[in-house]
């Protein structure tokens, strides 16, 4: 049964939007949060387990220092207050993919509290998202549903459980209720999520690949008649795992809730699910007192003490944050907003910076990565990073051009050779004998031959019409197999027509 929806523009005009995001970020530690089982994506089921992560009787959790360090890093990046004493609690509920049938999480004493993140929107507006907390917890295993339609839980006959993911460290970043976003709520949510992704990647604490489930968000939306009214009842859409999905969830929920409110209906406090296929959210389960998680301090774990020295040590390792870095590079490279956005959209910022660091000019590096190499990546259906060429290779090609050893055409051929796995640019050049013909005698002979073959062109040139110059250059290039320098050819042609 399709739900009634109000037009988005009408809904946001009529109601004040309040939303919140609970983002789960999977940390890329080597081992799990509470045991030394090695974590890697994929792998045979139930092979990344110790007695602790399998929840065997008698096993006990011990906190992974790197996970705590990563949490502190994120806390610093989000301007949080980092608690000197924090505590792990048990969240008790039964589910087949939870080895202990309780999750170890932080409850009333989280490591990070009370921060914010400034996110930049497309038009340059900066919106401050208030952060309630960023706490550490462990993940559950994975269920594969068997016997139903296309692996869905509904109608499945039974499920197969792989506990490899159980115990992988997560940080849950919880925003405060975000007010004042109005009709830009979806855009702000998307920008916030991308900013979180960029930050955790810059910090090196998560791969943040949404398609692999490294990052997922619960989206809370509520409406109220005006900004000074109390919060309305909110819906919670669980585990949305794409940026577009998050934006669309908020948009959809605003329209759905507005339509309900308009008809005088209640909003149920419920969990919902985003359905990518239908582009709608579907009602899940109404919150009830069955959600009694019976939190209490985990008696197997003692208080987590984070000293000022520990924080200072982490602070000294903090890299530049993505937004600051983007602004710096934009200025250094003298880019327009549009040029910068193109770089970001192509996911080429790191590559270009590395190429510049290897000696290329910013313009040169940008030209390669956004031009030839982007086309190549698109054609192959891979990311720029996955291409068989490094920023150092690109910088080397640029240097060969600058030194006058290659022209544009030879440079492209050299790059093709590198991409084809023929070796470094120097090796490719050596292998194919690419070089600009500097022997003016050879060029002059070729120019003479071209003049002879194209007397009409020569006439035009002599009369001052330079348009057909390309015909002569083309002929010379063909004769020298592309190794002549176009500038040198032009110079010789100009000399000859004056004679």
């Amino acid at each position, binding site marked *: 049964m399709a739900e009634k929806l109000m037009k988005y523009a009408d809904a946001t005009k009529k109601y004040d939007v309040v939303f919140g995001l609970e983002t789960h970020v999977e940390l890329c530690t080597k081992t799990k949060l509470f045991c030394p089982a090695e974590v890697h994506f994929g792998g045979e089921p139930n092979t990344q387990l110790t007695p602790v992560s399998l929840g065997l009787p008698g096993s006990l959790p011990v906190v992974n220092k790197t996970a705590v360090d990563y949490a502190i890093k994120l806390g610093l990046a989000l301007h949080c207050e980092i608690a000197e004493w924090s505590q792990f609690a048990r969240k008790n509920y039964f589910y087949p993919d939870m080895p202990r049938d309780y999750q170890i999480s932080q409850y009333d004493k989280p490591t990070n509290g009370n921060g914010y993140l400034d996110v930049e929107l497309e038009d340059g507006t900066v919106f401050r998202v208030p952060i309630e907390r960023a706490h550490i917890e462990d993940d559950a295993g994975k269920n594969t549903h068997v016997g139903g339609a296309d692996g869905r839980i509904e109608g499945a006959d039974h499920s197969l459980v792989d506990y490899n993911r159980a115990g992988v460290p997560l940080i849950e970043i919880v925003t405060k209720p975000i007010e004042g976003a109005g009709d830009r709520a979806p855009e702000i949510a998307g920008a916030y999520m991308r900013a979180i992704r960029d930050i955790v990647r810059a910090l090196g604490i998560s791969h943040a690949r949404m398609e692999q489930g490294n990052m997922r968000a619960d989206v809370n939306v509520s409406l109220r008649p005006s900004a000074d009214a109390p919060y309305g009842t909110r819906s919670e859409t669980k585990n949305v795992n794409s940026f577009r999905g998050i934006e669309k969830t908020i948009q959809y929920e605003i329209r759905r809730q507005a339509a309900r409110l308009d008809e005088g209906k209640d909003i149920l406090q419920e969990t919902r699910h985003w359905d990518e296929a239908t582009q709608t959210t579907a009602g899940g389960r109404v919150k009830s007192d069955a959600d009694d998680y019976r*939190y*209490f301090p985990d008696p197997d774990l003692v208080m987590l003490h984070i000293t000022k020295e520990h924080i200072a040590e982490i602070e000294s390792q903090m890299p530049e944050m993505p937004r600051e870095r983007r602004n710096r590079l934009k200025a250094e490279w003298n880019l327009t907003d549009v040029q910068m956005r193109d770089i970001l959209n192509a996911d080429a910022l790191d590559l270009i910076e590395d190429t510049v660091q290897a000696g290329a000019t910013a313009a040169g590096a940008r030209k390669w990565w956004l031009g030839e190499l982007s086309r190549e990546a698109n054609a192959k259906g891979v990311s720029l990073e996955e291409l068989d060429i490094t920023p150092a290779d690109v910088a080397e090609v640029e240097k060969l051009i600058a030194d006058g050893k290659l022209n544009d055409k030879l440079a492209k051929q050299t790059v093709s050779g590198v991409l084809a796995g023929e070796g470094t640019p120097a090796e490719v050049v050596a292998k194919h004998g690419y070089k600009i013909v500097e022997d003016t005698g050879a060029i002059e002979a070729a120019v003479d031959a071209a003049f002879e073959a194209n007397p009409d062109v020569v006439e035009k040139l002599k009369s001052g019409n330079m348009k057909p110059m390309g015909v002569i250059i083309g002929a010379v290039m063909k004769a020298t197999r592309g190794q002549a320098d176009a500038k040198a050819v032009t110079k010789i042609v100009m000399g000859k027509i004056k004679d």
Partner: protein
Amino acid sequence: MTQATNELVKLSAAEMAAKVKAGEVSSRELVDAHLEVIEAAEPSIKAFLKVSGDVAREQADAFDAKSAEEKAQLPELAGVPIAIKDMIVTKGIETTAASKILEGWVPPYDATVIEKLKAAGMPILGKTNLDEFAQGSSTEHSAYQTTHNPWDTERVPGGSGGGSASAVAAFEAPLALGTDTGGSIRQPGALTGTVGVKPTYGGVSRFGAIAMASSLDQIGPVSRTVLDSALLQEIIGGHDRRDSTSIPEGPRPMVAAAREGAKRDLKGMKVGLIKELGGDGFQPGVEARFNEAVKKLEEMGAEVVEVSCPHIGYSLGAYYIIMPSEVSSNLARYDGMRYGLRVMPPAGVPQTAANMMSYTREAGFGDEVKRRIILGTYALSAGYYDAWYGSAQKVRTLIIQDFHNAFQQADVLVAPTSPSTAFKFGEKMDDPLAMYMNDIATIPANLAGVPAMSIPAGLSDDGLPVGFQFIAPQQRDEVMYKPAAALEAALEEDWGGPIWQSMKTPWLNAAE
């Protein structure tokens, strides 16, 4: 049974170790002698859920095959066998916590204490009976069998560690490990005339001890002499990085303290009598033996003072909130998914994962365990958390303060271990509250995390053993070993030998 076997198994563990060291007896001979006693005693005692004879013989042979140099590197008790409460995980040996829900579970790993025993060359005789998941005070709540008290096989051995206590009392093992959450080592010690020690919380690693109530549980020694417990506690104690609640320090010098105590000189030591533990509810024979023992301490030079722990009356209440709360969470993992029992719902009930869990847990847990899980689920639930769990945690603070204050006035505190001697089977099974009262004098030490031990103080008017409890400050376990060893020596002089001389042991003669 030969006279030699009979005499051998009645030695203390330290004496057995000395014979091994002197080459008078091999570890294999010790193991065989105990396996022989086990075979003879088990029909009437039923202390063991599983006897691991082959494993023990193999371990003994491996020890005996070591060179003199290798043996010299091992702790004093090397070569002496031991029994393990079935609450402690043993790799390759079925471990059930005396529950149907874990029937047939063979762990793929060893508890830290088991690793330490193996490294010490101590063969493992088998797994001893207990109240299911260590929940009970009589061992009657075992899902498999009831263990009998060697002093009177019509009576319970106490609990939850009735199996370990009875095995050691009946000479089936010279030593055993127990777990103590509210008295499960000390109270059976009192009821069977053996020594039982609950170390400082965090003094012995809990890694591999099946959790009952994590903030209260502690593994400890069961033996027939104070020195044997000291020797064993030094082997199993010390920091373990796999247990976050483990104290980052080595074991205390307990063996030295026990040997010092044997000199029976307690001059300069202040002994605090806990005013609130005694009187009403304590059997007259228990009080009489307790008072006589206190007099002995005085005779050896100790100064006896009365101390007050005003909040001790709240400890039973706090315990029966904190313990079941932690139980309700710790026992959630037994859900029919990864190990142990699975029971599908009956026909007509949806065959879902949730229902499978509910029917598995209904079938797999006994009454006492269910009672505690339901009580704990309630205590943690929203709306009651502050009134119950929150209040209990505060009472815990007050009890810790009480002990702290008491230790300003005395070096070591004393109290009877159990209000009564061993009771008959079934006597308290229908009255949970009466059963819970057994632990009134042992629970405070668990709440406060302080070390405590029970040693035999003689026989009550009914001819059954009485336990005498010493309590020391946190992380000062050695402090109780000295007066305990002194009292043991003084009492044994009076009795003309160990307390077990008064015990009839028909099983030791049965084979002849």
